[in-house]
């Protein structure tokens, strides 16, 4: 179980002298504490798999270092890094039974047979694989195979970290949540550093206590699910986390007020004078903007559609030419075209060139 430090780590498939903009992974320095559960979240092509491959040693970084518990393991091969990995599709040894699959890593290390058997039995119980131990591995369903793949890592008592590369892709939708809760329970029981790569926000936010959101090769924000939801530090995080994503609308901001399309919205903090020339926007989640009857003091918007999802209703509205989503309070009968928007000032954020501006309380 290791603490992982990324020191100015970066990687470019086009060689080190290529422009930084083209790097698959822009330079990043972070520390992942020992025993933590981290999720690398972002759309396809954002560099999350590259980062995972750098940690597992499959790819050697063109720049920077990786430390396990302070020791520089960048030059070490995957084998010597003592990590475990569960891949996107189940990787099992077809000709072996489940038990032999689990015993394989220990047999390779020359561990005495008695110790192998006890260890395998222990991990099989942990992963509810005991009834299948004697069966051929290829005979099992996809989720059982992924457990075997995980089990091969866990049998090694000294594994530094367990890496997951979108492990639920081939699992049937109904079984996904069971495997997810199994992984979460394992993380609590085994005090293991776990790193989970996915494009699905539910998997990331459910599994990890720290989510690293990546976009275009850059780590955009790293924080707990609550931080990502309440205070996105970048407009992309606001857009990517939450469904529907955060409304991001250009506005003029000074002091305690933001001005959109001539209307003033009160802000929770004082933003003084923002850097000139920056692209100023305000961001607010649809959950914190309620639809109300049009009134003089309220910002007005024209309704395009009402999305009724049963437990919650969202109004798709337009302010000038900016699209906007707002919550329809339960029982509110929506007028046919114009409507007023009531903002919750505490959840309205201001962004300059897509980065969060911290106002003065």
């Amino acid at each position, binding site marked *: 179980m290791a603490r992982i430090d990324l020191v100015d780590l970066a990687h470019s498939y086009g060689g080190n002298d290529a422009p930084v903009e083209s790097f698959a992974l822009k330079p990043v320095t972070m520390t992942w504490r020992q025993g933590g559960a981290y999720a690398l979240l972002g*759309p*396809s092509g954002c560099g999350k798999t590259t980062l995972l491959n750098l940690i597992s040693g499959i790819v050697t970084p063109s720049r920077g270092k990786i430390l396990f518990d302070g020791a520089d393991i960048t030059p070490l091969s995957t084998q010597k890094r003592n990590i475990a990995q569960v891949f996107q599709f189940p990787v099992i040894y077809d000709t072996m039974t489940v038990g032999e699959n689990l015993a394989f890593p220990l047999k390779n290390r020359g561990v005495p047979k008695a110790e192998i058997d006890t260890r395998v039995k222990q991990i099989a119980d942990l992963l509810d694989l005991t009834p299948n131990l004697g069966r051929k591995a290829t005979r099992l369903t996809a989720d059982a195979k992924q457990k075997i793949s995980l089990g091969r890592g866990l049998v090694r008592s000294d594994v530094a970290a367990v890496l997951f590369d979108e492990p639920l892709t081939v699992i*049937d*939708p*109904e079984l996904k*949540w069971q495997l*997810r*809760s199994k992984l*979460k*329970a394992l993380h*609590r029981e085994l005090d293991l550093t776990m790193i989970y790569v996915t*494009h*699905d*926000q*539910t998997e990331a*936010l*459910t599994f990890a206590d720290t989510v690293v959101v990546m976009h275009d090769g850059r780590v955009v924000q790293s924080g707990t*699910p*609550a931080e*990502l*939801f*309440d205070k996105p530090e970048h407009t992309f995080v606001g*857009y*990517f*986390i*939450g*469904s*529907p*994503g955060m409304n991001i609308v250009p506005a003029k901001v000074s002091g305690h007020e933001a001005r959109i399309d001539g209307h003033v919205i009160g802000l929770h903090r004082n933003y003084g004078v923002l850097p000139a020339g920056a692209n100023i926007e305000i961001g607010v*989640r649809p*959950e914190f903007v309620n639809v109300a009857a049009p009134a003089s003091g309220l910002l007005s918007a024209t309704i395009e*559609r009402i*999305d*009724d*999802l*049963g*437990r*919650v209703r969202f109004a*798709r509205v337009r302010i000038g030419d900016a699209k906007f989503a707002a919550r329809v309070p*339960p*029982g509110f009968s929506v007028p046919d075209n114009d409507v007023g928007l009531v903002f919750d000032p505490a959840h309205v954020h201001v962004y300059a060139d897509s980065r969060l501006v911290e106002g003065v309380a």
Partner: protein
Amino acid sequence: MSVTLERVTRTVDGIPTIRDVSLTLERGTLSVLLGPTLSGKTSIMRLLAGLDKPTTGRVLVDGKDVTGADVRQRSVAMVYQQFINYPSLTVYENIASPLRVQGRPREEIERRVQEAAKLLRLEPFLKRTPLQLSGGQQQRTAIARALVKGADLVLLDEPLANLDYKLREELRAELPRIFEASGAIFVYATTEPSEALLLGGDTVCMWEGEVLQSGNTSKVYRRPDTLRVAQVFSDPPLNIVGIEKKNGSVQYAGGIEAPATGLYKSLADGSYRVGFRAHQLEVANGIAGRHAFHATVTVTEITGSESFVHLNRDASNWVAVLQGVHEYEPGHVLDAVLDPENLFVFDAADRLVAAPNKA
């Protein structure tokens, strides 16, 4: 223009995939086929399109029997789950291909293809081949080709299932606008209740090759005929608990008793099954006097906007949903509270006897 399936069945290698389905689709309507995987959605679509022949029963278009008709004579377009395009043609040619086959004049093809490309925001990609595009753009190309043809019947078979989470959300928000722009009959298959609710129109609930209930989407959502329909139309899964109604009070399976208020009041004595969706179960601490149950948290699934709390109570699994981010540690015991006004009651034969009257 209407398309009808009349008492249609289909068996493949002896296994019945469609059991006695009758369905009528009118012009300009959108019908959502909602059901779990392998419930027969794709089979129904292939029968509507004429790609497969029914074992028994008939397929009618405007009353005329087209059961045996070759797919080429039918005016049908289909979008598959795995974004099917012609890999060797450019996006422009892909969209234009149905018109070229119909022998339309050049300018008309140009106009209609540009129009469809604009609707699906594909103008910048017209010269590329599909394999150079992202999954989302490939699926938009397939949808554009399906629309440009002006077919009377447009079938979409779980078109968003293979897309990234966020891409799915974006395209899902655009679909209503895209469908309104064309007057054809739309049939949209999905496993996700939220897509049915979002698209509106009618919903046809399917289960193992049968149509359980069909009708206006919000009506079916709010008035499911049977427990099975309610289950099909609930994500996360419908919570169920057995009850025994006896002289003015309700005995919940697992040992809780409460006065038969709300919807229970008008029930005759006897045993029933109560179904309630995740948002109908309130998670709070110690609200006395209401129908409250002690339950232990197994796991909390967080999507950002909502948190689904999986609970275990008396050996059955329930799911409650909360707005925003709420992390409950597994093993934590809390009170799950039911509102007798806001739940569904089904009789011993699983038929609906009581449902919440408000929206």
